[in-house]
């Protein structure tokens, strides 16, 4: 009884220490990446290449998802609003939901699943096949050559993807509300224009997506760089990227919203 209790406490302690160690190692890697950012910015071709891999290749899944999310918002929103006789406000509901919350959050979750896992797997395999060691032996820093450009690409891509998500989502909502249900087109757009505030809604959404971009890309990079050089190690690291990114995005979304919203 006593020994099993002791082993449970030891396991909790071990996991806690492991967690703190990982946080510290992640923080140190983040610092190194910041140190190498200047060097990366001077080589824009590397960043453009990574923006293509992380951003452009994620476009399809982001845009298709956005259209469906917008259509669902249109349907659900109309269903509720018509009970109160304000179905013209459907444009406002769709736009605010997307710009404030769903745009940054769903984009970040899809980004973690599509681009984050790709980054982790690629870097993990580069480590497993000694490509990063080879770089070090050529007096080239893997942090500067491999990680920093990917970090910048992730941080640049995320707000653009979130903006596109919101835009296509609004079109999805319009498609359901106006041609299918018959809400007045003028009311849809004019109420949206009148109610969506640039500073309060759009800028706050962009701030969220930049923060999510930093967090999701950093988690993907760290998990790949820290992955044990085995097939199992890379596979676990890829899973951790999705799990940690999703939890971090949802948790941070609450914290950021709490700071941004005026109650």
């Amino acid at each position, binding site marked *: 009884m006593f020994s099993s209790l002791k082993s449970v406490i030891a396991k909790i302690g071990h996991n806690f220490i492991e967690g703190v160690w990982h946080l510290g190692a992640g923080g140190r890697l983040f610092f190194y990446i910041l140190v190498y950012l200047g060097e990366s910015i001077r080589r824009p071709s590397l960043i453009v290449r990574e923006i293509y891999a992380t951003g452009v290749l994620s476009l399809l899944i982001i845009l298709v998802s956005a259209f469906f999310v917008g259509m669902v918002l249109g349907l659900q929103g109309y269903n509720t609003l018509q009970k109160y006789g304000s179905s013209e406000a459907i444009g406002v509901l769709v736009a605010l939901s997307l710009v404030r919350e769903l745009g940054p959050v769903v984009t970040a979750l899809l980004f973690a699943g599509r681009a984050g896992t790709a980054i982790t797997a690629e870097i993990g395999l580069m480590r497993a*096949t*000694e*490509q990063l*060691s*080879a770089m*070090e*032996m*050529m*007096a*080239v820093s893997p942090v500067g*050559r491999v990680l920093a450009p990917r970090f910048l690409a992730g941080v640049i891509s995320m707000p653009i993807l979130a903006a596109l998500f919101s835009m296509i989502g609004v079109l999805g909502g319009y498609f359901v509300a106006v041609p299918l249900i018959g809400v007045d087109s003028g009311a849809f757009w004019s109420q949206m224009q009148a109610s969506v505030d640039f500073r309060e809604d759009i800028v706050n959404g962009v701030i969220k997506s930049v923060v999510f971009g930093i967090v999701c890309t950093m988690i993907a990079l760290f998990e790949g760089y820290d992955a044990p050089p085995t097939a199992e190690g890379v596979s676990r690291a890829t899973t951790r990227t999705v799990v940690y990114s999703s939890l971090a995005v949802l948790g941070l979304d609450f914290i950021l919203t709490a700071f941004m919203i005026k109650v």
Partner: protein
Amino acid sequence: MSDNIVEINNLSFGYKGRLLHKGINMSFPRGKVVAIMGGSGSGKTTLLRLIGGQLKPVKGEVKVDGAVVHEQGREGLFNLRRKMGMLFQFGALFTDLSVYENVAFPIREHTDLPESMIRDFVMLKLNAVGLRGAHNLMPTELSGGMARRVALARAVALDPQIIMYDEPFAGLDPISMGVVCNLIRRLNDALGATSIVVTHDVHETFSFVDYVYFVSQGVVVAEGTPDELRKSDMPFVHQFVHGEADGPVPFHYPASDYKLEMLRG
């Protein structure tokens, strides 16, 4: 200038309290091809990583061109590494770059040469390893032997003073093995470099190296020219050179008495 470009003095290294090397001494004279041989897990590759500064010794030192490797800062270490080229066991080619771009990688990273000159250098190195015609291929399109030769071209792209080879013959067919042996010797002599070859392939290695160190259980157990070692009557060297299953290196992993264990059921 010392005659030895690399010197290992009283080097000890280990992981988690277990010592892998216990006071190793080796020297690598300029212009020579030196082999480090030993069984699997004897720490041969770790020695290369210690020379390259990717690991720090517990005790002792590695000197490269007179500089103590583990005392160098980041800049100093990178300056030392610019004098080195390393061929990894499976090539470690960058899989997202073509053969041409792999060989051009260190040139692009460390020089500001115009593209036309980079092309000349890359083609020169690829020609030296016989793969000029494969410059457009991707690493996934190469056989093991070809990948090793491309990695060799990349390792010597900047004409290093020291070339390190980690198991260059692993998994190669006899023809590729002969080609790689020949290339190591030819490149070393053409560049006036020093080559350190980590391997356990006795016959191929003895045919082209100048000097051999045998490592076992963390220490250098024998050293000499290939001719001296062929004639050696040291039990370890004899077992290794003739590929005998049992001897000073036991066939069985330490275990309790077999008969007793079977009787216990």
